[in-house]
């Protein structure tokens, strides 16, 4: 791996890493294939005698669809259970490609499979803790808001539609809060990767990044999420209109669906790149002190405190600017705090040590 200063991407952008985005998409595609496959085998096999194949399942009126569901009910129950389990597993394993994507977005130059593997595995501990923490916070926040909504709605005992609308309003608010938490969650993940931080430190940095530019972050996340949802919706409608009678139509529907999913992945990568730029601004200055590998923790999760603070430059090299530590590269035009600081150069031996630390 090459994490020398010149390999740090000074302006992460999704369009610089189309290959990695495609890889992440491919992971999701394979996962979706595995989840859907048992249903395709069960239901497709049920109507395989018909010359039109499983197109008969989509006929208006639902005659053969209902019949296939009825006759396959015994097989569909375990199929659903196993697919649900697989789905949960995929949700967790998706942390790996996400971490790899974050690593690739923050790096400059050619990315190797080894790089991706290392990026994927390194923060998995912190990511897992963050996932658990976010899930708890989301459940608590959502639960409290929904409970409050229910309590208020119960006062409306006659107009039950109004009561339901109150509930729906609070559920929508709860969803908004959950989405807000997910934005923080992303920022914390970015901080965990960029700063090699543990859970608490990365959450602190996520809050700091959010405080530094809340509107920019929320706006950046929102338009991408909205555009992604719109693309998926358009694909849903378009593929429905294309139909499924002929194989060519099925393939066309597949392309439309997958094009929208791929576009959504690019939007997600674009958001993560923006999050990297924001988080980088609030990460502390890297140290110019020689860092001894033996003093570093084994994993980022164990290092749950603040990263090493920038030390005063050695007296014998007052004019040398400090080098960014690992992926904490910042450009003066992007980071006002970086501009205010007195950049010091890093001596060659320090760079070597830094590289060892990053590879630890």
């Amino acid at each position, binding site marked *: 791996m090459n994490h020398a200063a010149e390999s740090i991407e000074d302006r992460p952008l999704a369009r610089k890493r*189309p290959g990695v985005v495609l890889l992440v998409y491919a992971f999701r595609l394979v996962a979706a*294939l595995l989840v859907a496959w048992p249903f395709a085998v069960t239901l497709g096999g*049920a109507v395989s*005698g018909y010359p039109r194949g499983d197109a008969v399942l989509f006929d208006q009126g639902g005659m*053969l669809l209902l019949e*296939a569901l009825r006759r396959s009910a015994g097989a569909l129950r375990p199929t659903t259970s196993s697919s649900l389990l697989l789905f949960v597993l995929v949700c967790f394993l998706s942390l790996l490609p996400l971490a790899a994507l974050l690593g690739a977005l923050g790096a400059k130059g050619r990315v190797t499979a080894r790089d991706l593997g290392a990026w994927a595995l390194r923060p998995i501990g912190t990511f897992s803790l963050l996932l658990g923490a976010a899930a708890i916070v989301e459940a608590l926040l959502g639960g409290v808001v929904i409970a409050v909504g229910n309590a208020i709605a119960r006062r409306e005992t006659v107009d039950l539609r109004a009561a*339901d609308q109150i509930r729906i309003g609070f559920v929508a608010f709860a969803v908004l809060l959950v989405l807000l938490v997910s934005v923080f969650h992303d920022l914390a993940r970015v901080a965990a990767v960029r700063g090699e931080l543990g859970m608490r430190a990365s959450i602190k940095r996520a809050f700091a990044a959010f405080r530094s530019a809340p509107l920019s972050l929320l706006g950046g996340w929102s338009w991408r999420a909205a555009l992604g949802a719109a693309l998926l919706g358009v694909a849903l409608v378009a593929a429905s209109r*294309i139909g499924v009678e002929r194989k060519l139509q099925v393939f066309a529907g597949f392309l439309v669906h997958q094009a929208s999913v791929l576009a959504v992945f690019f939007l997600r990568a674009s958001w993560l790149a923006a999050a990297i730029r924001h988080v980088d601004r609030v990460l502390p200055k890297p140290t110019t002190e020689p860092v001894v590998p033996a003093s570093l923790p084994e994993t980022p999760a164990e290092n749950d405190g603040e990263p090493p603070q920038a030390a005063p430059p050695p007296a014998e090299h007052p004019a040398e600017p400090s080098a960014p530590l690992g992926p904490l590269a910042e450009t003066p035009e992007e980071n006002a705090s970086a501009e205010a600081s007195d950049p010091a150069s890093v001596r060659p031996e320090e760079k070597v040590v830094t590289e060892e630390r990053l590879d630890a």
Partner: protein
Amino acid sequence: MSKRQGGRGAWGRTLLAIVVGLGATYGAALAATAGVSAEPSSAPGVELAEAVIPPSPAGSGALAAFAAEPMAAHADPVASYTLRASLDPNLHQVRGEGTIVWRNASRIPQRELWLHLYLNAFKNEKTNYMRQRARGFRGGGALADYGWIRVSKLFARELDTELWDKADRHTPGDPDDETDIRVPLPRAIEPGETLTLDVAFVSDLPSVTLRTGFDESFHMVAQWFPKLAKIEPDGRWAHFAFYRFSEFYADYGNYDVTIDAPERYVIGATGRLDKETTKDGRVERRFLQEDVHDFAFTAWDHFREVTATTADGVALRCLYPPGFDRDATIELDAARFGLEHFGAAYGKYPYGTLTIVHPPPGASEAGGMEYPTLITTGGPWWLPETGARAIEGVTIHELGHQWFYGLVATNEHAFPFLDEGLNSYAEGESMEARWPGNSAARLPGGFGVALPSGYRVAAAEVEHNEAVAQSAARFASGSDYGSLVYSRTATILNTLAGVYGPDRVREAIGRYTRRYRFRHPGPEELLGILRDTMGPDAELATRQALFERGWVDYSVAELSSNRMEPVGGVFGDPDKPSAAPVLDTYGYRGRVLVRRHGTLVFPVDIDLVMDDGSTKRVRWDGKGVTHEVDYEGERKLVAAVIDPEHRVLLDDDLLNNAQSDRGGGPGSRVLERGMFGAELLLWLLAP
């Protein structure tokens, strides 16, 4: 800088790939769909068999012919009630008094009367209804408050005798049940003789359950007065205790009911409002209705109301909870359509009013029920937004009961299929007429589920369990009752419609409802009309399906197709063999073996599908247990499909109706849609 340019180039290429892919996709899709018409096109070489029954256009002569079937203008009043009912909404009680005028309409002198006191079904845990362990269907919730009816007076004017003192105190043979009460008479009442009974009673409503009761200030007041059982022409009383799955049966009469309730309460009731008087914070409303056999009313101080009038002058009134305006609009619209559709098919609706009651959500057990000129619907306010047509369906279904229960008053206890089953058929037929292909639900993407498809599936699940045509008291479970009585009967009639033609079934049922309007037919009357209209085969199949758990399953057992080879073997004298016969056809020879399992016999079409997609249709009369189809043709035979248009909905298993030499494997369409669905879920939930 160069790397940045390189990155932009990669992005550009990716974007270009997506755009080109999308464009090509749409182009290909449009090209593929351009030639696809709504109806399957005839492939070259297709031989279409003569249609089973050519459908006649709407308004055809057949429709006009059965529409001319004579129809009674009024019922023969046998039991008429003049009652005053005072509702105490705090105690949830109705205090009633009045007179019952009963005429012995049988040919036999009567020494007893039978009264149904059905509110006593909810009196305690030992009643016949509460003891029954069969569950399901409806009425499953625990009672929060018990209900009862107490008669204090039953005075026969002509006999100058108080009858209630000598009446039995419980259902015959069941000391714990008080729903079916024999009242001995001091002397015989001759055929045609009339008896006037002065009656007084108190009805205490249960918490809402099984069609009746209260929920807070909402009251559905049904089966609330002492009601005479029906006397049959042969002198037998059709009396029965209250059973979990059973509904009702009574003689026609005229009802004059005055309901007294607090002024703030909105009242909906059977019949037309004749008079309304306000006094001391209470309102008396008098409702009149002739030619009916029951009376129910509802009272709630939060009802909203919307009214309309049909082209025929029927006053529609919908009572609904606050916030359910959209549901009320849908119900009025469905009722307007249903009155016209059912009127054309089964005879004009003879009453001047129809009240639709949408109970509040806490009282859903009061919903989905029919009374003369009053129906109850139900469902949450948001249901229409889901694409399900449940609000429309329940409205049409309960409206249909105005014919199949109201105007043709069959014994719902002895043969529930005669009202619920025929009505389910009528519901499905009218819903399909209004929303073809998506009468049960219209899902996102335009995919529709038809009501008859749902009926077929529900019926197929239980078809071997019990007979359809049996008493409600004999069903072992609620699911058997619901699926056999409602769904199986509808599926039987839908099969007749598929095989013999929908117009023929409409004609038969139309004749039945007209001929037996204001009467009390049984299964034999229905079967007789089916025989007269569609022939003995149809009648036999219906009888077997209804009474004998008749069933059928068609399947393709074997399929083969091979290129014709020179004929092998020795021809002529073995010592001097002659040349093998020369085939006059070049192509393929094949065979399809189809089977019929079960006891029902219906003719079916069989489609032979060739490798170029063309089809050849042959017909099998369905007789015998197997049938072989020999094939010779230029194209290879690759598949066979029995009953490709799903005319025989009674077919036990539709999946074995087809066989293809292309083998199984995963369904590409299910896989594609499933993958996208999984990706959507992962987009929502995964990191």
